Structure formats: structure tokens, C-alpha cells
């Protein structure tokens, strides 16, 4: 059910949830399917890599953020997709057992000039580990439908 519309995402709005912990088998299984580099798939080779052990694919950390966002609030919104992401940064390796939290902050909200029923919201999305370090950061844009007029409710 849609509870939140474009108008609900004003600059400074923030949301945090989690944690989600990735196990070593989850890290290996994801990477075998989508990103089979040895420091993601092979514990022994990962130990000899510059990371000194198994680390999650950055894309896996990205979809941890996406899933936490969906479970946290996105599925209750009028979101109709995303044009893209900027400044995606993999800042700290994510290792097995890391307890990951997701934080979303609204940076900007702009009503569409051409389509009066929607607007674009710009967010900073962060994945934070158990030591409070930002492991992943990105700027994401999403389109949200505007709240229907009172008479339509």
C-alpha cells in the first residue's frame, strides 16, 4: 500500500535500518554468480590478496542497501524507478560477519517540470559497518508520484 509520496521526501529526511550480516558462504555464492573474482570466491587466494581475506563484491553490498531500502520503506512508497546513481564508492571492504546498516538521507527534491504527477528525489545512500565506518556510499535518484489531490483520496 502506498503511504509515502514525493511530498514526504524533503531535504534532511533520514531513515536507518539493519543490520544485515553477510556470511562467508553468502559472499562466495553471490560472487560465483555475478562477480567471480578470486578475492570474492576463494578464501585461500583472498588471504594472499591485498585484502588479506575474503571480501564481498561491491555489487553485493549495493544490493544489500537496495534490499534494506525496500524492506525499510521503499515498498510503501509511490516510487516508479530510478534514472541512475552517481559517485558510488566502495570505501571499506565488507568481510564475512560484518553487521551492515543502511542509511538514506534526502539531499534534494525537485518536482518534474514536464510531468506534473511526479518528482525526482536525490538521496545519499550509505552502508555502515559495526564499527560505524561507511563501507559504501552513493548518490541515488528516484522518481516518486506526487500525492493525489484531496478529492481523489
Amino acid at each position, binding site marked *: 500500500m502506498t503511504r509515502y509520496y514525493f511530498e514526504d521526501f524533503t531535504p534532511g529526511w533520514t531513515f536507518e535500518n539493519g543490520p544485515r550480516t553477510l556470511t562467508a558462504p553468502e559472499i562466495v555464492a553471490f560472487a560465483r554468480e555475478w562477480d*567471480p*573474482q578470486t578475492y570474492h570466491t576463494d578464501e585461500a587466494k583472498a588471504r594472499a590478496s591485498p585484502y588479506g581475506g575474503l571480501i564481498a563484491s561491491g555489487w553485493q553490498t549495493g544490493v544489500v542497501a537496495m534490499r534494506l531500502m525496500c524492506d525499510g520503506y521503499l*515498498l510503501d512508497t509511490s516510487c*516508479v*524507478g530510478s534514472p541512475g*546513481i552517481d559517485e558510488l564508492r566502495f570505501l571499506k571492504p565488507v568481510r564475512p560477519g560484518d553487521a551492515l546498516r543502511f542509511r538514506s538521507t534526502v539531499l534534494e527534491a525537485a518536482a518534474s517540470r514536464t510531468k506534473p504527477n511526479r518528482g525526482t528525489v536525490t538521496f545519499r545512500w550509505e552502508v555502515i559497518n559495526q564499527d560505524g565506518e561507511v563501507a559504501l556510499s552513493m548518490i541515488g535518484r528516484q522518481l516518486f508520484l506526487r500525492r493525489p489531490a484531496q478529492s481523489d483520496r
Partner: protein
Amino acid sequence: MTKPKKLYFEDFAPGKVWEIDGPALTKAEIVEFASRFDPQYFHVDEVAARDSPFGGLVASGWHTVGVCMRLICDAYLGQSASLGSPGVNEIRWTRPVRPGDRLKLRMTVVEAKPSRSKPDRGTVLHRWEVFNQHGELVMHMEGLGMFLRRPDGRQP
């Protein structure tokens, strides 16, 4: 069988292009990926998706990225001296990817910079362009990768 040649920083010269044919995404794959990672209704519910602005089921943008990452690993990254990635400058999902769409990836080296502080490595900026079977651009991004330099110091 000879071992494939290992690729180092020096092998990623600006202008180098890889064209990689990808798979067609099935409805079942689109729904399965999104059910795990991005369960928005227009990715997981075919009926509800018809009433969305997309007019039907579309793949999660993360799914398109994952398919391409796998293609790159299989094509060359798995045999490279890759040290990982500091990040991606931009991702744009320019058109929906729908069930049955067949993806094709073009990777272009935009820039290659030796590290100033670590003489054994360098950073390569790649432009990823993903097309559907009609030749329409469905996604593009600019991704950074770190690679070790060729140990003998020679050019490829």
C-alpha cells in the same frame, strides 16, 4: 592448453574496446533476481507491473549491472591483475530491460592513470555501454578499476 595471457595495467590503453555478447533475460530470471535483491512490484509482479509507468515487468537496474559484471569477469577481468574497484562515477538506466531482451556490452577504456603513491599499480576508467537487441542503449556507466603494472615494466 596454454594459459591465457594475464592482463596488466599496461594492457588497458585508452581507446581499447571489448564487445561482449550477453544473454537474453527471461521473465523467471528477472523475477528471481528482484525477489532476492530489489522486490519492487514492477520487477516481481507481472500483473501489477502492467499498471506501472513501465507498462509491464522490467529488470532491476542492479540485475543489468550484475549480468554485465559477470560478462566482464568471464571475458577478461578474471585473467587480469585486478586489485578491485574504488567505485563507479555514474550509472544511468536509460531504457527498461524487459523479458526476452538480449543484452550486448561494449567496454571502452577512457583513461589509464599510473598511481603516484604506489608505483606497482594504476587506475583505469572504463565506460560501460549496454545495448538491447534493437541496438538501443539501456544502461551506461563509468567504472574505476585498479590493476597491477606489468612486473617486467615492458609495454604489451
